[in-house]
Structure formats: C-alpha cells, structure tokens
C-alpha cells in the first residue's frame, strides 16, 4: 500500500497546496513586490532595483537597524544556547525533583513569547520597576533601562535568554544519550570532570549544539514581540531590529515595495548565515550515527 504513489501524494496534498499558496507564491510575489513602489491605493509601479539601492546607500535607519539586529543576535543566541547547555549539564544527574526543575526552566520558554510577558518585562525594567527596586536594595544605582539607549538592548536580550528552556530540554535529552561507560573509561584515563565535559560530552553532542544554534539564530532574527512591546524600537532606535523596520514600512507607512526589499535583505542575511553554518559544520560537528564497518 505504501508504494502507491498516488495515494501517498493524496495524503500529502494539503501540504503541497499549502506550500504553493502560502509559501511559494508569496515568496515569489514578495520579490516582485520589492521591485515596485506600492502604497495600496495606486497600482504598483515597477522601479527595478531602486529600493535596494535606496537602502544600501541612502538609508541610515537601515544601517542602524541592521547593526542593532546583528548585535542582538550575536549577544542573545550564544547566551541562550550556552545557558541551555550549562543548565542541562548541571541538571543531568540522578536526582529527585528533576521534573520540577525541568518544568521550572521550561515554563518561561513557552510563556515568554506572549504579550503578557512582554508587558511584564516592560514593567519590571521601568524606572520604578522590580529590577531597579532590587538594585537599590542591594546598594546599587538604579538604571534607566528603557530610557537609556545604552541599556535598552539588555532588556530584550534578557527576555530572549530567559526562554532558554526549550533548548535546554533538547540538550538534556542529548546528554542523557551519552553512555555512562564513556565517562567511566575517561575517569580511568584520568580525566577530571572538566576534561570530561569538554573532551567527551561536548564533542559527542555537537549535532545537537549545531541544531540549537541554527534554530535559535533564526528565531533571534525574527524576534518581534519583545522589541515591539517593551522598547518600541527605542530609545533612539537602539533596539530597532529589522523586523520592526519591516513592519513599520509595510503596515504602518504602507511603503510595500520598500518593506518587501527590506525583508528580502533579512532573508538573504539569514540564508547566508545558515549556509555558512552548514558549511562550517563539516569541521566541527561529529555524527556518531550508524556503524559503517566491515
């Protein structure tokens, strides 16, 4: 029955249609759109690569936004993945209450994307918010998190890092797949716990590290709710990530052609980084995989 290609195709049909209508067609359309000037009222006007030239040469806001986005990704992704790995490692031993901790770390990652939490975040970093109250109690000076362009990035980076639970759970599963006898052999070889972590644990979970890194990088580039609700891209555009810029151009100012061009730049950026990551993975990712012997 499973060799019946027509039957198989029928089951896959929703997906095929979905890809065509909701992914492929919009994909091509967005590129076409990026070559036009369109404001929803008058018909679209073909302008060739004008939009791209504009954002490359004439748009300081784009430069700013690009810089902010890259800076955000560089800070937030390693923090999130690193934290996830570390906590998973600490969590990885026979202990009572592992379920409690796992849930405790996981909850932020599922609630974190909500507006409710963004609202909360905005509140606790406010001038008289929880964070400053705590700082004062500990004898430090309060910080104008949301008003100072040097600190605003911290708030959204922290929100992103706070959601490390989903990555952690994946790391935990991977860590538990490493056979204990390898650690015992390493112990007999005289490897300290640190050496065991860096020379045995980490190399063996590189596929998972790679997976998490790529997924989190993509998520980071698409981060919208946080910057939108907490800092609204400010102050002084210090947290004006590309997604905000694209949103503003497309849905606020109805500068559709330009918005499309911007989104293509973002797309190309992520695509390029993903390709580079995949290429580099040959050198540092080790797949234990199946035996290919005899």
């Amino acid at each position: 029955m499973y060799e019946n290609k027509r039957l198989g195709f029928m089951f896959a049909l929703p997906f095929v249609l979905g890809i065509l209508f909701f992914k492929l067609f919009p994909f091509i359309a967005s590129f076409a759109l990026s070559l036009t000037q369109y404001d929803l009222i008058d018909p679209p006007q073909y302008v060739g690569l004008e939009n791209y030239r504009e954002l490359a040469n004439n748009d300081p806001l784009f430069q700013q936004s690009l810089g902010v986005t890259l800076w955000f990704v560089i800070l937030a992704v390693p923090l999130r993945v690193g934290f996830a790995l570390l906590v998973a490692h600490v969590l990885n031993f026979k202990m009572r209450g592992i379920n409690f901790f796992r849930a405790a770390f996981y909850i932020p990652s599922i609630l974190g994307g909500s507006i409710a939490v963004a609202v909360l975040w905005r509140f606790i970093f406010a001038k008289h918010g929880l964070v400053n109250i705590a700082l004062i109690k500990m004898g430090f000076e309060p910080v104008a998190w949301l008003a100072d362009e040097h600190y605003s990035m911290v708030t959204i980076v922290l929100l992103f890092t706070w959601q490390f639970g989903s990555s952690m759970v994946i790391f935990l599963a991977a860590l538990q797949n490493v056979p204990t006898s390898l650690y015992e052999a390493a112990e007999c070889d005289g490897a300290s716990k640190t050496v065991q972590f860096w020379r045995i644990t980490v190399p063996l979970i590189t596929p998972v590290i790679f997976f998490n890194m790529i997924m989190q990088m993509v998520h980071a580039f698409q981060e919208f709710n946080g910057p939108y609700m907490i800092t609204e891209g400010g102050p002084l555009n210090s947290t004006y990530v590309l997604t905000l810029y694209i949103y503003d151009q497309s849905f606020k100012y109805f500068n559709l052609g330009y918005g499309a061009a911007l989104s293509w730049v973002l797309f190309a950026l992520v695509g390029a980084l993903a390709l580079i990551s995949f290429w580099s993975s040959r050198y540092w990712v080790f797949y234990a995989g199946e035996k290919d012997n005899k």
Partner: protein
Amino acid sequence: MTAEEENNAKPPLMRYLILGCIAFLMLYPLIWLVGASFKTNSEIFSSAGFWPSKIEFSAYAAGWKTSSEYTFATYFINSFLITIPKIFVTLISCVMVAYAFARFDFYGKKILFGIMVSTMMLPLIILRMPQYLMFREFGWIDTYLPLIIPSAFATDTFFVFMLVQFLRAIPRDMEEAGMIDGCNAFQLLFHIIIPMLKPAIISVIVFQFIWTMNDFMGPLIYLASVENYPVSLALKMSIGATEEVEWRNVIAISVVALIPSIAVFFAAQKHFIEGATSSGVKG
C-alpha cells in the same frame, strides 16, 4: 550508579543550590507578577517582595472590564475562537501529511521534504505582506480566516516535522498486520497510527494552543475592529496610551491571560516534553 555515586555525597548540594538559584531568578518575575496583581499601585513600585501588605482584588475586576467598550470576556472568547479551530485543522492536516512523509513514497517526496526543512529555518516575515495582499483580495481582512486557514494546509512545518520523526520511530508491524486484515489507508491511520501517535498529538495540541494564544503579529496585521481582538491585542491596547497606565489592572489581566497556557501545559506535562525532544535530537 558509579562515579556519579561518589559525587552524590558532596556536589549534589552544589548542584541543587545552583539549580535552585537559577530557577528562583527565572521564575521570580512571574511569581512577583501574581503577587503584584493584588497590591496597590504605590506598593508595586516600592517593594520587591512578593506578599502584598493587603490583598486587593479590585485590580482584577477593573482590568477585566478594561477601559474599552468590551470586557476581557469578549477578548478571551475571541482568542478561543481562533485557537480551537486552528488546533483542529492543524491536527488533521499535519497528521495526514506526516503520515505521507513517514510511510509513503510519492512524486517529489524528497524535494518536498527538503522544502519543508528549509522553510523551518528561514524567516517568514518575508511572506507577511504578500499573504496580506492575497487575503485582502479574498476579503478576509478583519476575520479570523487568515489566522486559521493556512494551518489547514499543514503550513506549521514544525509540527509536521515532529510528527514525522515520531512516526519514523514506530515500527510498521502493526500496520502490516492491519493491511493483512484488509484495512485501507484511512482505517490504518485512524485505528492504528493515531492511537500510537498520542503523545506527539498531545504535544501538537499544547504547543499550538500556547503559540496561538500568544500570537501577536498575526492578529495585529489582520484584525481591525476592536470587537474582534484576541487577548494579545487587547493587552497591547491597555498599554496603548503611554503615560497614565493603570499598571495594577494591566498586571492583573496579564496574569489571567497566562492562566490558560499554564493550565494546558501542566495538564499535559509528561507527553509535552517527550514530544518536544523527539523531534530535535536525532540530528
């Protein structure tokens, strides 16, 4: 255990301590949020402690009523009007498609699978505007259709992927027995495969529920009238005007907004995490 056993004498204390600290720091904002919803405005801005000096329920009532013409009852109903149908169609389409990829051979299978994996990795904001224009042509603006219909076509590739991985790990024995018994594909799917997929299906339900309840950009783009707003937009509205924000009310309603997600999560905890990891580990 083994050498771990040795460590169980000393460092577990260290580990518990570290884990405890991190868990506390992580969860305290949420816990504080709950406590703050019962405090007075002045207290919220002055104490970092959890307990309110006097428990006030008024924030909940006021927040619920909101300063708009609708209460949160409307907004919650709207959220559910989006979420429930979406989960329904997601399950149907994703299970069917995952079944196809995991078991069948069909034209273009490899290419389609490649497309599926790559769409998981690329920013989807690029598709927003064209999709908007398309739905505008259909006349679906200010309805829930743009939010629900795409899921009926298995566009949530994460779920398809997760279900495929899960299915691949299940041996075909029972299906083969079913085939010998004369089942057709739909019967196999319904009577044999779906029961085996239960943990993964529960994960899909939980994830889709929480993500849809949290969805902000979608409703933001497609919904124009306030009476159609789900909770996520309503929350944003309550912060709308910058200066005079009744923080107590906003906080109270944020707490309420989070309750359905937390409830669903705990109700399915066991299955949830199993499903989440099964898709990610085998590299």
